[in-house]
């Protein structure tokens, strides 16, 4: 509940503050639909609103994706950026932009395919070699670095493929359009709903493969399904927000410190806290050096890094790596 209130406040702040400040009175006028031709209205509708929605969607999607990957791989270090899922999505997005420059609608599914193939590759290799927790991470890091090399190669050969490829690499929301958001948003909303439906299964899965199996669960099928949802979420977020890293790792851990380990509460909390975190970071990214903007990924690391270290120092017992 408290998370919901904070999210609403963060959203209002994000809608009102920026290079141009929209006053609460103006905000009400906009909502009432008066004066559609005014500059303020246009800023609101075409810049602020898509951007705020984008921040919330990307945050929720990546946080839930991280929580899911952590529980499926039973590994506290796993998150979409660390095991290469984000790079997979990023690589597919870039490739898609080179091959089909005008097809915005193709980006989220392409990113999903990239993310899913990566997630599947990492988990298959891990299962095949009966990998320890650390080996899973190393496998992911290796696959991720191959894909990042791919992304950089595309950048070298096709420097004009996208405006602000720099902001894509660290994750940024400046180039979000309502068109790119519309397609990705559908994937994210569906992914979030499905993740809520399957949160008890995530708990059972965390008992370990043999125990989950003996309780009557089809472990392989659920693992596959949950990884797929995680990939849909991460892929869709990356397709418009770029390689936002940190959210997927720190939000689930932060959430667990406050609400406990039960996925029944962790998943919904991740949806809210992920949205809050990215919205607040994006707000700061716009305001810190206004009128210049930082990509949100930078702010996120500056803010999230120390916060995560603080968590490690004070609440280490809750973070079981």
């Amino acid at each position, binding site marked *: 509940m408290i998370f919901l209130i904070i999210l609403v406040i963060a959203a209002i702040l994000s809608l009102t503050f920026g290079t141009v400040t929209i006053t609460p009175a103006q905000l009400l006028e906009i909502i009432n639909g008066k004066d559609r031709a005014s500059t303020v209205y246009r800023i609101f509708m075409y810049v602020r609103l898509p951007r705020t929605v984008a921040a919330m969607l990307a945050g929720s999607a990546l946080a839930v994706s991280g929580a899911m990957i952590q529980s499926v791989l*039973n590994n506290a270090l796993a998150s979409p950026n660390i095991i290469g899922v984000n790079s997979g999505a990023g690589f597919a997005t870039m490739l898609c932009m080179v091959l089909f420059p005008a097809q915005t609608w193709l980006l989220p599914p392409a990113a999903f395919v990239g993310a899913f193939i990566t997630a599947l590759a990492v988990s298959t290799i891990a299962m095949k070699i009966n990998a320890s927790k650390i080996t899973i991470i190393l496998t992911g890091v290796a696959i991720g670095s191959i894909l990042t090399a791919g992304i950089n190669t595309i950048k070298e050969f096709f420097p004009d493929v996208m405006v602000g490829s720099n902001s894509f690499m660290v994750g940024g929301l400046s180039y979000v359009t309502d068109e790119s958001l519309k397609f990705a948003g559908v994937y994210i909303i569906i992914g979030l709903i499905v993740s809520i439906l399957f949160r*008890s299964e995530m*708990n*059972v899965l*965390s*008992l*370990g493969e*043999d*125990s989950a*199996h*003996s*309780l*009557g*669960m*089809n472990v392989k099928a659920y693992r596959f399904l949950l990884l797929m949802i995680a990939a849909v979420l991460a892929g869709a977020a990356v397709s418009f927000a770029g390689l936002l890293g940190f959210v997927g790792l720190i939000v689930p851990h932060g959430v*667990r410190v406050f609400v*406990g*380990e*039960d996925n029944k509460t962790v998943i919904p909390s991740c949806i809210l806290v992920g949205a809050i975190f990215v919205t607040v970071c994006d707000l700061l990214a716009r305001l810190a050096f206004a009128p210049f903007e930082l990509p949100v990924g930078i702010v996120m690391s500056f803010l999230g890094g120390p916060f995560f270290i603080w968590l490690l120092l004070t609440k280490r017992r809750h973070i*079981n790596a």
Partner: protein
Amino acid sequence: MLELLHLTGGYNGEVKVNSLSAEFKKDEITAIVGPNGCGKSTLLKLIVRLLKPMSGKIILDGSDVSSLNRKESAQKISFLPQARSIPHMSAGSLILHGRYPYLSYSRKYTKKDQEAVENAIMITGTEKFRDTPMDRLSGGERQKVYIAMLIAQDTEVVLLDEPTTYLDMNHQFELMNIIKSLKQQGKTVVIVLHDLSLALQYADRVIVMDQGKLTACGAPREICLSGTIDKVFHIHTQRISSSQYVFSPDEKNGLF
């Protein structure tokens, strides 16, 4: 009653259990003993269908278990694996997971589920760490919580893979007594044990396995008298009272 008929299986094409036939009776604890790598854990995994048998049948109360779906099978056979990573949840919610095979899609726990959980907590004496996270419990306490989860699962057949390994003596006895109470509830208990003296002391029947095959099966006393244990483990067994045994190195074979 659980019956195995010429059950054969293993990993990656390698046969670990070789055409093994056996019977496990209700109201009895059957202990499976045998040297490392003899296929005892594999046998349990085959019964719980974590591994697919290469050939042979598993019959429970007259019907083939391969005809059961996952849920039905989990309502009839429960299994405590040996190696587990410690899940991040409280003991209470772990025990509640024992009811998973009975949940409908709405995931609402019924009164019957709650009762089964309360009963399991009572039998195992785990009330006091209900809200404690699993990773803060000692090995012995954790094991009791797992047994409670199995009791909540309320299955006819209970399979346990070395539940007492790494526990202190007193915890071993405590755990074995809880397991004994399972058989008194009319369950078929099958337990793989490393500890021969525990096996001979608590089991009603002992199955000795060696190289994937059943080499002997019978009451602890008979097994001891037959000398099978001595042969398989290369030791010397001496019975000192009705359920107490002393083991010593087998000097004849010159192993020591």
